[in-house]
């Protein structure tokens, strides 16, 4: 084994493919794997190709694997949405060498894009979910083995929290794999409905494997009172908060190893599911008849946080909080991060008021969406429900005054929620009065509420829902 300096989640993904003997990484991500792969330098016989789009990324990797060389498709969340048809076709392919698809959430905003796991399940592709760079390294290697053993592409889902975590990794020497040679178009390859029975058989075989795999899954048998099923970063958060609980850490989240879950539920009294993103595991467990608590105890939008886990477990009386479960004070709120408590309060208030959220504080796209929505409705073509846009800072609001001015003509309630943190943003520090500015462009309804006060936010949203045209809620901290 060669020990190397710290690797991030994305570096470990590329490095894992290298050590597994892959010949190619085909990437369609924001952060360029070519630069990442320089730590440590990769050798000849390992190439990184940059695909022009998500579909090309998947199909190129499929072609390489069918040709007998191990290939890793490195693709971001958005790319999965575009390439899902290509992935569904790939599930029916007959590979000469392993094909691994690493789903990379390579920017904070990707937490806002739909969780890719339901799509991957629909495409009938098994999903592994590592909890840190060390696991990423080993999961990518195992994914290649599984792909070849069960003749199916394997996904490694690397969430944003894992991508941005670094750890010291021991990278195995590069495995030598001989190119198996391209075969003629395999007669067995079938796509479409005729392939489904075959693919289902492969998925069932992966589940049988997962039920017996304590390399990918792990059981921590501690307290019999509380059992927690978690995957990925959620496992590490939950372990931090309540290390004395019993844990089933799922490395294989699809197909779900139901017999292992059944074994785990046999020695714990209360069962919780904690997961980052959508309640993907929870819904599968409920469908299989397991009595679990999940999102009802750990409500969150977007990324999971330590505080959400701590608050949920404390509310259940499962432990005495060892970490702070109060939302961070405004001083700690950070611009633009979808995980902070202010956004969660705002999201919760908007959802409770049945307001249509036109995107999230990400970029100008949010405002454009709202503008189009407003204009469409003004022409009598849009839905009737009120809509809201969330603007992360007053300076963003200022930067897009033109778009916002256009929205004043809309004939449905449109709400602009401006997050204004701690006076650190430029317009506030320079004393620009948002209220007067709004009045100047024809927005008469402007309210101010404390940033973390969910009740006050809800009241302000309810009031704004009754006003035609645009109104502004400034969330001040």
């Amino acid at each position, binding site marked *: 084994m060669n*020990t190397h*300096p*710290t690797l*991030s989640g994305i570096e470990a993904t590329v490095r894992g493919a290298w050590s597994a003997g892959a010949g190619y990484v085909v990437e369609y991500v924001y952060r360029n794997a070519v630069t990442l792969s320089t*730590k440590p330098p990769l050798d000849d016989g390992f190439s990184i190709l940059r695909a022009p789009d998500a579909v090309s990324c998947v199909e190129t990797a499929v072609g390489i694997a069918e040709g007998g060389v191990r290939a890793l498709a490195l693709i971001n969340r958005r790319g999965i949405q575009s390439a899902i048809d290509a992935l569904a076709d790939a599930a029916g392919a007959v590979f000469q060498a392993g094909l691994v698809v690493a789903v990379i959430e390579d920017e*904070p*905003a990707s937490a806002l894009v739909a969780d890719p796991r339901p799509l991957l399940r629909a495409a009938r592709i098994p999903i592994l979910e590592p909890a*840190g760079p060390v696991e990423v390294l080993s999961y990518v290697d195992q994914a290649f083995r599984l792909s070849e053993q069960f003749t199916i592409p394997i996904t490694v889902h690397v969430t944003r*929290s894992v991508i*941005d*975590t*670094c*750890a*010291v990794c021991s990278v195995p020497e590069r495995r030598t794999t001989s190119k198996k040679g391209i075969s003629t178009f395999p007669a067995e390859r079938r796509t479409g409905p005729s392939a489904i029975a075959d693919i289902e058989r492969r998925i069932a075989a992966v589940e049988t494997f997962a*039920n*017996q795999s*304590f*390399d990918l899954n*792990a*059981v*921590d*048998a*501690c*307290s*019999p009172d509380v059992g927690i099923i978690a995957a990925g*970063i959620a496992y*590490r*958060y939950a*372990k*931090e908060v309540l*290390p004395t609980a*019993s844990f089933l850490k799922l490395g294989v989240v699809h197909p779900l190893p139901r*017999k*292992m879950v*059944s*074994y785990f539920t046999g*020695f714990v009294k209360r069962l919780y599911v904690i997961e980052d993103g959508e309640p993907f595991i929870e819904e599968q467990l409920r469908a299989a008849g397991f009595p679990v608590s999940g999102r009802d105890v750990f409500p969150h939008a977007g990324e999971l*946080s*330590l*505080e959400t886990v*701590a608050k949920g477990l404390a509310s259940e009386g499962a432990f005495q909080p060892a*970490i*702070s479960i*109060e939302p*961070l*004070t405004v*001083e*700690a*709120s*950070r*611009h*633009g*991060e979808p995980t902070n408590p202010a956004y969660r309060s705002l999201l919760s208030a908007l959802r409770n008021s049945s307001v249509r959220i036109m995107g999230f*504080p*990400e970029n100008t796209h949010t405002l454009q969406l709202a503008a189009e929505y407003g204009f469409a409705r003004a022409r009598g073509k849009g839905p009737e429900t009120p809509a809201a846009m969330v603007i*992360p*800072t007053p300076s963003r609001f200022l930067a897009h005054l033109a778009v916002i001015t256009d929205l004043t003509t809309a004939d449905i309630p449109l709400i602009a929620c401006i997050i204004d943190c*701690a006076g*650190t943003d430029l317009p506030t*520090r320079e004393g620009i009065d948002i209220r007067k500015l709004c009045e100047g462009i024809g927005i008469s309804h402007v309210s101010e509420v404390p940033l973390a006060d969910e009740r006050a936010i809800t009241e302000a949203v309810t009031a704004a829902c009754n006003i035609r045209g645009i109104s502004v809620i400034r969330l001040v901290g």
Partner: protein
Amino acid sequence: MKSANAIFCGAENGALLKASELLCLAADHAGYDAVMHIERGQEDGRVSCHIRWGEKIWSPLIPAGQADMLLSLDLRETLLLLPMLRPGGTIIIDGNALAGSDIGLTGMFASAVDRLGCAVHKVPAAFCAEDPALAPASLAGVAASFLPWPDDVWRRTFDALGDHAPASVRDAFHKGKSYEAETLRFDISPRFSPPLGPTDKGIRTFDEMLERVRSLPPRRVCIAGAENRAALHAGIECVERGLGTPVFVGNRETILSAAREAFVDFPIGDYEIISTASEQETAEQAVAVVREGRADILLKGGVNTPTLMRAVLHATKGLRSGSLLSDSFVFEFPDEDGTRLVMITDGGVTLQPTIQQKIQILRNAVVVAHALGNAMPRVALLAASETINPALAATMDAAAITSMNRSGQITGCIVEGPMALDVAVSRKAAAIKGTDSPVAGQADILVAASIDTANALAKSTTYFAGYRLSHVIVGGTAPILIASRSDTADAKLLSIALGSLMARHFEEQRAQAG
């Protein structure tokens, strides 16, 4: 799980990430589990790196209010991150960051720091690199001067970084390190134990064990129900073999008459006798003697086992330590490499252990192995075969416990399972079956799936193979010896010797714990 936590913040650039990586890597070289997490602000190009180290780190993110140290190159970011700092935490800030900030921010910082009671170190320019690209390395050097790690750790860290830390970075780091701050103390210990030599297996035979016990100060053995002739004999043997001093508990008259009748030459009057009127009182008094430290070992004599165990397990007046009690059998096993001591557990207390109970049983047996001088025993979790089968709970339990050992949640031993008996104790069988494991063929502890298996397996060593056997109940605050009525005199003597070693081990552990 204790950890030390630092946050390094400033404008996002490669230098800051590299400096954070340097601290993370150094923590790894210092023997800790170390992890680093990058939190990026979306808007303004600022970043905070969470760096954590300790025996085992779970969350890569530092929980709010638990950062010990905040390293900052940017005042505004420091203000945002103040709630992450624990009360009384340390802020190390590049003096240039303060000098270049507007008065409003500086004022907010001063009042916030005052409110939180933080120690603030404004690092003078003399310790900071002039080149902004090297400022993070300088600040990492200043942080290093707060950390209790020897220079060798930093040297090895830079060696590992190689070309990723060029001379300019090293110079900037050492400039910062000359700050020579007062070293902060973190109440955490490295995860790594000192490496063990291949011969570090401790006592290998019962004769060695008896020799070892004789070289130690004699222990006081409390015999519950000493009216029984066999129990009385055990006490006398203790004295005659130099293993310990008996404290007899039972009906005084009966004890004296039994001694006068069967052991005429033994000066029973020289030893303490605690007189009791009933069997229950005998059990309670014997347990009280051990609990109060007037004896080191509890030995069952004529008193009934359930009565004694009720007294032992009493919530307030018993010998409970919070752990499960379990019976560990030790026998001499002549394997391919010569004779060694092998343990079988639990053959006497828990009927059908759950997985949690198996872990406690395993931990108890590991304590016995440590008392016998085997610092890293190899543990085999027995099953019918090495295949994991969800239909067989024993194989699932074994695999789960093995993975807990590998992830550092069960320490002080090497665990492997599920494993069949032949693979566990015979290298030849392991080789034939192709089992590649550090435990295969060399198991020191055999953990059975149920009391039936463990009890039968342990007794078969004596009855089928004629091996010498001893056993001790562990998991309480003192070793408990419950001899079977059919145990040979040799087995009883060996059990007392084993109990003596255990008592000595407990004493050392208590001394270490302060």
